């Protein structure tokens, strides 16, 4: 068993582009769910619009990438308004249903064969992200790697994660600055009891809308990073489980905390990759009897996701506040 390889793989996943994307999505979800109490189950819809807004602008319309990115983010604002205006006055549960449905509708439309000319439909879309990679300061080459052992990135990956983690830091800082203010206090009051907020003169609808837009745009950034990372987008990358992974990361790190979503995203990918890598090694070393290793082989990814799910269940049972959350705060049940 070569644990250095396992840890190297896990660390690469924990700090790679996938973790950046998850972290950004979780930071946005934290604004929705953690601070405002909005049960948004359609976070992946914002990521999808960020990714496709960018991809379609560049690939289909031939615009510059620097136009495509704002287009993607503007679409996220539009989705937040379209979702929020009719539904934010409804009960939290109804809002949850609408968001999950909206995200699925978007994915199905974008991935439909009728949309091939615009979005590539089920075939996925790809574009030239050269405008981004031209700025890459890292040396590139088939042999150039940054890191040690399996914890290493190519020059291109280094550029994506440098920009990505910078975005994560900026988004976290922006959320910190607005949430520690009286504005953030209104959000938290809406989460705890929106009628109390209303009785004290706060326009609950307007604050929910602001939170929905801000969190949605941050998730849109996650989609933009995804599109740039792969130089394109694929409808299959935006299934509902992306939203659930985002919830997992958020709860893992600590909902309604400033660094929780980032820590959660890093940990999520670390655990997932560690388990998957470990299972592969097990199979390779032939320590397991054939009857177990045969069906296991090829499904390491599925099992590792299952294990992360199990970890989440244990976490909710034994450490509901997450890694960095406040336990007393979490144990207060709102009646």
């Amino acid at each position, binding site marked *: 068993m070569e644990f250095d390889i396992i840890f190297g793989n896990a660390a690469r996943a924990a700090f790679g582009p996938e973790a950046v994307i998850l972290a950004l999505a979780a930071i946005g979800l934290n604004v929705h769910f953690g601070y405002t109490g909005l049960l948004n189950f359609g976070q992946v819809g914002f990521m999808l619009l960020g990714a496709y807004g960018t991809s379609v602008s560049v690939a289909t319309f031939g615009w510059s990438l620097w136009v495509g990115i704002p287009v993607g983010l503007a679409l996220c604002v539009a989705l937040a308004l379209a979702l929020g205006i009719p539904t934010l006055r409804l009960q939290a549960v109804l809002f949850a249903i609408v968001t999950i449905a909206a995200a699925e509708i978007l994915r199905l439309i974008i991935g439909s064969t009728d949309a091939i000319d615009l979005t590539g439909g089920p075939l996925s879309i790809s574009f030239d992200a050269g405008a981004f990679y031209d700025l890459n300061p890292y040396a590139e080459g088939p042999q150039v790697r940054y890191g040690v052992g399996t914890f290493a990135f190519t020059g291109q990956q280094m550029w994506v994660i440098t920009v990505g983690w910078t975005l994560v830091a900026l988004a976290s800082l922006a959320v910190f*600055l607005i949430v520690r*203010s009286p504005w953030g206090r*209104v959000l938290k*009051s809406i989460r705890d009891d929106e009628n109390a907020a209303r*009785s004290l003169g706060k326009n609950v609808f307007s604050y929910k809308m602001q939170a929905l837009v801000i969190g949605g745009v941050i998730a849109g950034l996650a989609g933009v990073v995804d599109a740039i990372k792969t130089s394109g987008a694929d409808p299959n990358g935006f299934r509902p489980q992306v939203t659930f992974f985002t919830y997992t990361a958020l709860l893992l790190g600590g909902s309604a905390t400033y660094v929780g979503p980032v820590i959660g995203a890093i940990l999520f990918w670390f655990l997932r990759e560690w388990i998957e890598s470990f299972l592969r090694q097990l199979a390779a070393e032939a320590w397991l009897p054939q009857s177990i290793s045969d069906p296991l082989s090829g499904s390491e990814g599925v099992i590792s996701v299952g294990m992360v799910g199990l970890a989440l269940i244990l976490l909710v049972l034994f450490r509901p506040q997450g890694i960095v959350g406040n336990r007393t705060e979490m144990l207060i049940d709102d009646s």
Partner: protein
Amino acid sequence: MTVDAPQNVGTAPAEEIEPILRVRSEPGVTKPDPILTVEGVHRTFGGLVAVDIDHLEVQRGVVTSLIGPNGAGKTTLFNLLSGFERADRGRWTFAGQLVSGMSADRLARRGMVRTFQLTKPLARLPVIENMLLGAADQSGERLWVAPVRSRWLDEERANTERAEQLLEQFNLAHMRDELAGTLSGGQCKLLEVARALMTEPKLIMLDEPMAGVNPALAQSLMQHLSQLAMSGVSVVFIEHDMNVVAGISDWVVVLAEGRVIAEGPPWNVIHNDLVIDAYLGRSAGQAESTEREEPS
């Protein structure tokens, strides 16, 4: 008290209450200086008429209590007037302006603030943050101001000072940094009243503020309400305890089956036969009221 009603500051209580004393004790009577005027407000739930008020006026700067048996429509009336429920029909004015149908938050910003029978503490926020939320017109509550701390910090400090004074008055100073979710039921009641006062209301509507509050604290809460009225804030509260009602109300309105059946100064209303009927049931009430004439 910190109340923004300069025109009334320093007015002796007797002068404040005197005009209301000249008002006749009859349902729907007009009053010399009403802050709230209710006209034809009607609300049904299915076949049940919850609220059906022809005319009701609430005098400015006095303590008015709203009493009535269970199910009389007191809380529903509060909900309608404060914008938390929609009336089927009817209009009401607040401080001279038509406000019927206005949303709860706009009404609160205009100075009509209510509390709830089932308290609504912001459980995961500390007591002091609950209080600060109440402060009206905070520039830091605007998104584009919020990130720049220097632009709201002074205001926040001033509000914190005021909040701490109120917490002191309501015997909650020692709970300042505790999460509101850890308060007892009585403390929640006090917090809710104190938080409502942070908005500097013109009219404060309290739904059973004394329920579950220990007698000593209830006593001091009653004094607060009287002081508030003296400083020009109008107080309306729902209460079941007749001692409390008789103790601090300047005026009592009795609701039964959604209608105003009597109103007047407490000593007039509490012994009113109609009121006793409403509380004890018609036949029982008649029997008891004749039997009880001597002892009461």
